[in-house]
């Protein structure tokens, strides 16, 4: 018999019951909640007179609706001007209070984007099953956890039964081998993967990211990669446990300690795919081939390298793709064969569950340092992923670098990634964004999103158009040192 994949192992460790009809009950170790996808689930519990099965697995925070200016946040929930948003945030507070669920409220220093908060607190551990009513839950898979997004009916199901009714997925391995070039980040890696396999390439699969380039990433980089598994169609993205994983988890508020820590680490060491494990599909990329990426269209698969150009729809492989590309160019206001470096930007957004952790802010700050944003940029904002990320960045002086360069330094939340709060694009505005989706209208009605890494976003803010971060003086200096 062949060995097991990491996904197979996690599945077996949580399988409560396999039914004859192909469905299975799996046990859930961590359930994260936010205000947008939970109110109807709590309402369902209430109507059926049910109680949460196990309170201590749940952890909630408000992130999608919260305003990000200091003035608004100083007033707590009452700073939320939109009455509909306010009700939603208040409803999460009320539900958590009523059922006794731990919540990091709007001005708790631990508040932040749910997928930043979980790992930061050690609430996400290797070997866990982690679910949340949010498709970017795959982020937590970076820790060798089985993590995926669920719908609101499933949120209610997990609250009531501590289980998820599901079916086993197929195994896919995406290998990135080699050494990433200077200025090429985890974001570029995952965008390149999506560009290669497409937004439906991972449908039906749990993806394990592997290979020397993945192993060389920090935990933050690994989270960026797993975060966007869903943009490749896969609910689950994951990376095997190694020293990098274990070093990150030690001494966090929710991490085990003492004897439990020793036992846990011994257990976690097994969370790797066996050498003889068989995957249903294996895709390999060479790290050296990956350059900084920029999306040009309205789907994350519509992406290319910074040295590239906007494709010609007539070159598309079939009629459906051709129509998609034509429509995307029309929506984006771009022309076939236009150079990526000729795309001018109106706004810059550095933030989101993909790229709002401390390393992301450091990378962006390195590029911004000593520079000013271009006159043509109407707004450049940096939105830290959590209160703790914000505090850390301020301790390192990153806030000052950004402010001096002309960026706005904001309070934590999802912000302009999906524009449920007041942070949004106007119609026709081009935005260099470190978020995860470039769908039509995603960042504001008629807004035009270009997905990039934090360093690329900062560089675009300064130039007013896309530039190759590899050619910046900061990177040249590093090159010179290496030479």
């Amino acid at each position, binding site marked *: 018999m062949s060995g097991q994949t990491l996904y197979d192992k996690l599945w077996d460790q*949580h399988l*409560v019951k396999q039914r004859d*009809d*192909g469905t299975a*009950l799996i*046990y859930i*170790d961590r359930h994260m909640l936010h205000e*947008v*996808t939970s109110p*109807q689930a709590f*309402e369902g519990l209430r109507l059926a007179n*049910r109680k949460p099965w*196990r309170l*201590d697995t749940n952890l909630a925070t408000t992130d999608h*609706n919260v305003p990000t200016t200091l003035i608004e946040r100083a007033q707590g929930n009452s700073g939320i001007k*939109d009455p*509909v948003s306010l009700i*939603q945030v208040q*409803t999460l507070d009320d539900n958590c209070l009523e059922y006794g669920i*731990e919540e990091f409220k709007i001005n708790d220093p631990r508040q932040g984007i749910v997928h930043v908060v979980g790992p930061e607190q050690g609430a996400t*551990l290797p*070997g866990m099953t982690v679910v949340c*009513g*949010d*498709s970017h839950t795959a982020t937590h898979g970076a820790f060798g956890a089985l993590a995926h997004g*669920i*719908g609101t009916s*499933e949120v209610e*199901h997990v609250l*009531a*039964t*501590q289980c998820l*009714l*599901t079916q086993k997925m197929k195994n896919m391995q995406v290998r990135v081998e080699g050494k990433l070039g200077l200025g090429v980040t985890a974001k570029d890696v995952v965008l390149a993967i999506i560009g290669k396999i497409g*937004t*439906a390439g991972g*449908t039906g699969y749990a993806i394990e990211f592997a290979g020397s380039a993945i192993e060389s990433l920090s935990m933050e980089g690994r989270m960026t990669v797993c975060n966007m598994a*869903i943009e490749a*169609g*896969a*609910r689950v993205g994951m990376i095997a446990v190694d020293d990098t994983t274990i070093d990150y988890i030690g001494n966090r*508020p*929710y991490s085990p300690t003492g004897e*439990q*820590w020793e*036992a*846990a680490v011994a*257990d976690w060491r097994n969370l790797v795919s066996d050498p003889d494990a068989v995957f249903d599909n294996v895709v390999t990329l060479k790290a050296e081939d990956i350059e900084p990426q920029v999306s040009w269209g309205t*789907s994350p698969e519509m992406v290319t390298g910074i040295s590239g150009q906007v494709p010609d729809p007539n070159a598309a492989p079939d009629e*459906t793709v051709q*129509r*998609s590309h034509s*429509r995307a160019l029309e929506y984006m206001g771009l022309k076939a064969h236009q150079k990526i470096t000729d795309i001018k930007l109106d706004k810059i957004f550095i933030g989101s569950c993909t790229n709002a952790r401390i390393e992301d802010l450091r990378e962006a700050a390195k590029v911004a340092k000593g520079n000013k944003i271009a006159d043509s940029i109407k707004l450049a904002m940096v939105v830290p992923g959590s209160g703790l990320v914000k505090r850390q960045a301020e301790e390192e002086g990153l806030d000052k670098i950004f402010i001096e360069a002309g960026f706005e330094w904001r309070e934590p939340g999802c912000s302009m990634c999906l*524009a*449920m709060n007041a942070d949004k694009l106007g119609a026709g505005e081009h935005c260099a964004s470190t978020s995860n*989706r470039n769908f*039509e*209208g995603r960042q504001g*009605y*008629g807004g035009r999103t270009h997905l990039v890494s934090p360093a690329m976003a900062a560089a675009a803010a300064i130039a007013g158009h896309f530039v190759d971060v590899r050619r910046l003086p900061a990177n040249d200096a590093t090159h010179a040192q290496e030479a």
Partner: protein
Amino acid sequence: MKKFERFEGVVAPLDRANVDTDLIIPKQFLKSIKRTGFGVNLFDELRYLDEGQPDQDCSQRPLNPDFVLNQPRYDNAEVLLARRNFGCGSSREHAPWALEDFGFKLVVAPSFADIFYNNAFKNGILLITLDEDTIDRLFDEVEAKEGYRLDVDLENQRVITHRGEILEFEVDEFRKHCLLEGLDDIGLTLKDEDAIRAFEEKHRQRRSWLFRQTA
């Protein structure tokens, strides 16, 4: 959940690949804490010429005459014919809530995104996957014939086209059963309460750190 019964419904074609859940129901409508009322904002950005706001009276808004659901021939459509990777993107269950609230009972496409697939069935919406060639043909047939309908027979896993052609489809047994009976998942799962408790106890003994009280 209502039982899914055999029906014959008008088919509306949405000729566009990778329809994401942001397009099905834009984010500003996700602020509602209810499960109902999303139908008027289904495909809001395609359907209206202005930017929609929550709790707005949509009857006064300018309609996009080119959008398929605004064309009288597709009035009362109950079947949506779509392209590949329908429902990609966010996990928002508001997407199937909006489709259901609008009146759709069935979406037919070459492929669906995983989370959307789950969410739709949990709200009584049937999703049928057919090969690209068949889908292409259905688009042509729907275009050619006003009032084109499909007779949808979940029990026997087949749809009968306007021309009497029988198209068989696959659906997993459990989802089919839940749809036909209108069953609530949670109630079914709680029948296995003892198995869950037994698993939980074993899990606790083996991996005690997962049961650490922190609050």
